[in-house]
């Protein structure tokens, strides 16, 4: 009885998560900035004059009215390239995070619900994967899988899409290496949920394990998992840019922020300082990452205050 009163008082005192989020200015500003970046990434390349993405003779023009961000080594408009990079980086970030979300949730739920020996074996496996530096593993995985996918596309008459094979590979590989934390969080949630009475009730009326997992446990932990999804997106974007920077990620004529920064780093080393090649992609990427992290932190504080560090 006493605990029930304490619980209800807690319910009254705590504001709703959305209200909490609205009182967090950093998160709100970040959310608006992200929507702006997303809109610019989707519509920007269409609205810019045609030919801005083409190779021309106007190499290394400094920023001007015509080319607000200047042009790159191949005479392409840098604003166009940055917006194209935003498309690819955000696409890879969101889709990769979604892959990790699905894998992490299923793995964590099976481990937590299974319990006992299965749980400990599955979690030891996660520990082993944690011990391997992820980016090293990614380098190997991508270089092994990319030629396989390319060959598969060639033999199945998908030559037109071959330029995009790298994006698919990046999404898969980043998703398949980024799910470890999600699995741990979901498993923890399942462990605490499965001893509660509604699970016992579901079992006592003869529901299957499948039903219990997907109809009773999943809706209860999806909120926390979604919050961590927003924190996974910037991590995946950062990893993608790392790989593109090293030359195993997205290839020209496509662009990603990592690739643009890598191009910039290559032409900046000689005596001439083409600062715009570095500064504009760097600003775009840093602001997006910063905003994603602020928003993720804000969501976490609002929806899952116990996990706050």
């Amino acid at each position, binding site marked *: 009885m006493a605990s029930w009163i304490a619980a209800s008082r807690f319910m009254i005192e705590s504001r709703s998560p959305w209200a909490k989020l609205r009182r967090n200015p950093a998160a709100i500003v970040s959310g608006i900035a992200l929507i702006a970046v997303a809109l610019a990434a989707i519509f920007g390349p269409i609205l810019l004059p045609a030919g801005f993405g083409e190779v021309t003779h106007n190499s290394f023009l400094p920023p001007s009215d015509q080319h607000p961000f200047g042009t790159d080594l191949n005479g392409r408009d840098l604003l166009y390239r940055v917006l194209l990079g935003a498309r690819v980086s955000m696409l890879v970030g969101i889709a990769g995070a979604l892959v990790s979300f699905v894998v992490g949730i299923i793995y964590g739920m099976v481990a937590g619900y299974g319990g006992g020996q299965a749980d400990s074996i599955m979690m030891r496996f996660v520990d082993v994967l944690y011990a391997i530096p992820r980016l090293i593993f990614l380098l190997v995985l991508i270089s092994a899988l990319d030629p396989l996918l390319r060959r598969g596309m060639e033999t199945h008459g998908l030559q037109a899409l071959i330029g995009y094979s790298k994006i698919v590979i990046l999404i898969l590989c980043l998703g398949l290496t980024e799910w470890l934390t999600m699995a741990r969080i979901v498993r923890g949630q399942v462990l605490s949920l499965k001893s509660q009475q509604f699970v016992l009730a579901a079992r006592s009326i003869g529901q299957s394990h499948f039903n219990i997992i997907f109809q009773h446990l999943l809706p209860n932990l999806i909120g926390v998992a979604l919050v961590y999804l927003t924190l996974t997106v910037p991590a995946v974007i950062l990893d993608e840019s790392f790989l593109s920077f090293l030359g195993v990620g997205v290839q020209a004529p496509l662009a990603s922020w990592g690739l643009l920064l*890598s191009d910039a780093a290559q032409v900046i080393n000689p005596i001439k300082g083409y600062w715009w090649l570095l500064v504009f992609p760097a600003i775009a990427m*840093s602001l997006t990452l910063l905003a994603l992290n602020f928003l993720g932190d804000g969501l976490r504080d609002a929806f899952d205050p116990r996990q706050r560090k």
Partner: protein
Amino acid sequence: MLRFIATRCLGLIAILFSVVTITFFLVRLMPGGPFDRERKLPEHIEKQLLAKYKLDGPLPEQYINYLGDLVHGDLRLSTKYRSRSVNEILADSLPVSGLLGGIAFCVATMGGVLLGSLAAAKQHTWIDRTAMLAALFAISLPSFVIGPLLVLVFAIYVPVLPVGGWGTVQSLILPSITLAAPYVAYIARLTRASMLEVLTQDYVRTARAKGLSENTVIYKHALRVAILPVVSFLGPLAANLLTGSIVVESIFSIPGAGSFFVNSVLNRDGFLLAGVVIVYCTLLVLFNLIVDVLYGFLDRRITLYD
């Protein structure tokens, strides 16, 4: 304690075994062999090459043989850098990466702890706010933004430091700052948060009541406890510096082991790749073990054997 170290060493072997296995088979999965060129090699030459590099025979047999060689410390020959062994290549390049990583490690831990305690001691002043704002930016900027920006400023517009290269003391400065910057920031935040918590504890009040100077209280009494979360971050720090150095070495064209990661993947140089991966993972796991033992010594409340 001994039992703990023994179990962890067993774990180390298990991890290395899985790493070797995964790398070996992933490399063999890649289409295209290490000797594929524009023109196809005559069959007997290719056969001889494969035999020289022990790449002939059925795959399971190759795998067993490779494990045997590894146990004897032989990382085999590189198929790209002909006639050089992986052991030689690593012996040349690892000390370079090690020096860079070591400097960055010291900069990150010492700089971070100092900045963090300073910010905590001056909480609610402009020092604290500036330091934490700077830390936020350093954390969210990836090293391949910080590095070229530093080059742009300190090597091109104000030419006081070299753009890249290796061999002089000056050429060490920009790479180590680039590598260490995010971790200085992270450790500073970690130290500040933990220090603020420690400063509310009773023994700190006692130390102040005794009339000790503020510096003695913070840097001698409080820091000893506040530093514990930093110690547990040292393991991940080493891991991040190892992978981070791949990028930093490429920005500043430093002849370290990092470049072999990418190149060996592109050249299908399986044994070199496996060698680099094995060495990096060993270093990492060993380092984590040392950190855990160290932690047990620093904080007597922790027992390592369960």
